[in-house]
């Protein structure tokens, strides 16, 4: 499988009242074509930030990107001009499914208007450069012919995401739809431009378990059918297990371990991953949390950020961040003292 997205040593921070919050610290992430990659980690560890970095929608004035690269199909997105990124990549080659399907719809326009707006700019039928290219965006028109074709595509896809009576749904306002319906629409909108990569940022956290199961199934099926790669952000390990081909774990802005799903849940070697899995509630009632607290991102501990809470930490963990080491096929870990496990 070919690399679709390769994030290398991405380091960035946000300027806050308290100082520079070093939110990502040398993050590596690789997604292959058609792969569903789970990005898991506890709240505030930088999952959303990483997703937004790929989409190029980090808050402009406060973000300080100090290093690394994001290569997508060979182009470095960080080096791309914002308008080129917005025109050629965002919404076209890379699309987005947000966490909050209610807030992500504009409340004062019908969903039809909003879908058609995306199609106007991002439809796969849109020729790359037409006579309108030099026109200001506000003046550009939507050719009727393409509009019709796009609309047919929309209706077809709405059907595919199990939204009955799509024509009616398009005429509704977001608040007139249920959470599940909204999230289905979001999925449809992410797939309509026929992208190579969909970034889904915790798309099911706002939903009930039964609806979540439906949506997860939908994403999984459509991704497989269309060969789309997905970056799936979640803090729920169960969900990650459910739909991902591979999982990357982050802790406090650093990636710690990355492995194919089955390997990850059975043979993880990083102490943090290990403790995380041990914290899951079990019928037998034997749970163990992780003592200590998540470090402040403004004054993070040096080296491996997990070392203050890690029982196998040693002096070298403080000195430097462990390099990425391969621990099997597609299994990479960043730890000087990985757990030794008997292979299951």
């Amino acid at each position, binding site marked *: 499988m070919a690399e679709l997205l390769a994030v290398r040593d991405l380091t960035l921070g946000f300027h806050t009242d308290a100082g520079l919050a070093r939110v990502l610290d040398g993050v590596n992430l690789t997604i292959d074509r058609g792969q569903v990659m789970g990005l898991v980690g*506890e*709240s505030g560890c930088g999952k959303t930030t990483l997703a937004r970095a790929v989409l190029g929608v980090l808050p402009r004035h406060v973000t300080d990107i100090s290093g690394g690269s994001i290569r997508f199909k060979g182009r470095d997105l960080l080096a791309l001009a914002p308008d080129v990124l917005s025109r050629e990549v965002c919404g076209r080659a890379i699309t987005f499914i947000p966490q909050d399907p209610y807030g992500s719809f504009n409340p004062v326009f019908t969903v039809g208007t909003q879908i058609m707006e995306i199609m106007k700019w991002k439809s796969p039928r849109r020729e790359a450069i037409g006579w309108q290219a030099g026109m200001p965006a506000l003046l550009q028109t939507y050719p009727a012919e393409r509009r019709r074709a796009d609309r047919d595509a929309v209706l077809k896809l709405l059907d595919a995401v199990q939204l009955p009576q799509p024509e009616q749904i398009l005429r509704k306002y977001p608040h007139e739809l249920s959470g599940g319906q909204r999230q289905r629409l979001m999925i449809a909108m992410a797939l309509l431009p026929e992208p190579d990569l969909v970034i889904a940022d915790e798309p099911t956290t706002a939903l009930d*378990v039964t609806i979540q199961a*439906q949506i997860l199934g939908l994403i999984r099926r459509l991704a497989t059918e269309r060969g789309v790669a997905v970056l799936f952000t979640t803090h729920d390990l*169960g969900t990650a297990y459910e739909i991902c081909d591979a999982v990357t774990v982050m802790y406090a802005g650093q990636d710690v371990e990355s492995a194919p799903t089955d390997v990850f849940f059975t043979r993880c070697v990083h102490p943090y991953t290990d403790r995380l899995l041990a914290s899951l509630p*079990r019928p037998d009632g034997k749970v*163990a*949390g992780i003592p200590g607290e998540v470090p402040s991102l403004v004054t993070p501990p040096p080296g491996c950020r997990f070392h203050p809470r890690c029982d196998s930490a040693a002096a070298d963990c403080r000195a430097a961040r462990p390099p990425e080491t391969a621990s099997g096929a597609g299994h990479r870990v960043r730890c000087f003292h990985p757990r030794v496990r008997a292979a299951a």
Partner: protein
Amino acid sequence: MNAILQVRDLQRHFPIRGAFNRQLGWIRALDGVSFDLIQGEILGLVGESGCGKSTLGKTIMGIHRPDAGAIHFEGINIAGLEPRAHRSVRRHLQYAYQDPGASLDPRWKIGRSLHEPLIIHTNLSTAEREVRVREILRAVGLPEGHLDLYPHEISGGQQRRVGLARILTLQPRVVILDEPTSGLDVSVQATVLTLFRELRAAFNLTYMLISHDLAVVRMMCQRVAVMYLGKIVEIGPTADIFERPRHPYTQSLLAAIPQIGGKRITRDFWLKGEPPDPGKLPSGCRFRTRCPRAEALCAETEPELRLIGAQHAACHFAELDSLRSA
């Protein structure tokens, strides 16, 4: 068995109002709920968002007035008591909010918040109160220095501890825990759940644990009640319900939870559609619009809770095999 709390046919309806205060309909947040809470147990209450779990807890507490039904707490019916009379009951019956951070006054130091219940319910002097507060603080595992901090200055897990300490100062017998771990990371959740267990042992508490996380409930509770749109559709010992769910809704709920290392449920999850508008409930069984097993009977008569095996379930076809294995 010794029921410390008996709830009988409890109803609580919220009006839906339009302009003019004109009433457009009712949301039946509680539509005839009955169950017993047994001394010393942990009863789990699960169900989807908006099914009435919090309303049930708050109605028992007297925050909402029930429209009908009875709540016997230690033999006394406390349903619809005057606010003044209710206040004395509250010493023994406490409610732990879903988000303890939000349940602490942001402008009050932790210490002051901890004194408040004692000021309201006891005539202790400041010094006596101080002793009690420090005791309880130790019990929930917080350093005394925290008394001088504001809620936003401590972590979420610590806020939860403060919230519990505030409740426990009054030495209640029953504590209703409303989604105590929602929004917490698993590692923190694990610590909090452990704390609940320890406190229960130390203070001889009875819990009603409201949650939508079945895994947590399974781990913590002796018995589980499953709610769907204002009604309990199934109730019984935890092991039985998780092994042999009788109600199709419970079955789908269990089927919807990803099991690490288990079968991938999304491949063939069978429940379609979404819960109906709580203002416009369907006739008969309220689950029939989504139920793959629904028949004409389901639209006509509403099934009552029936005893099947060790558990009660409200389904006409509860005896049939589980859908999951079908």
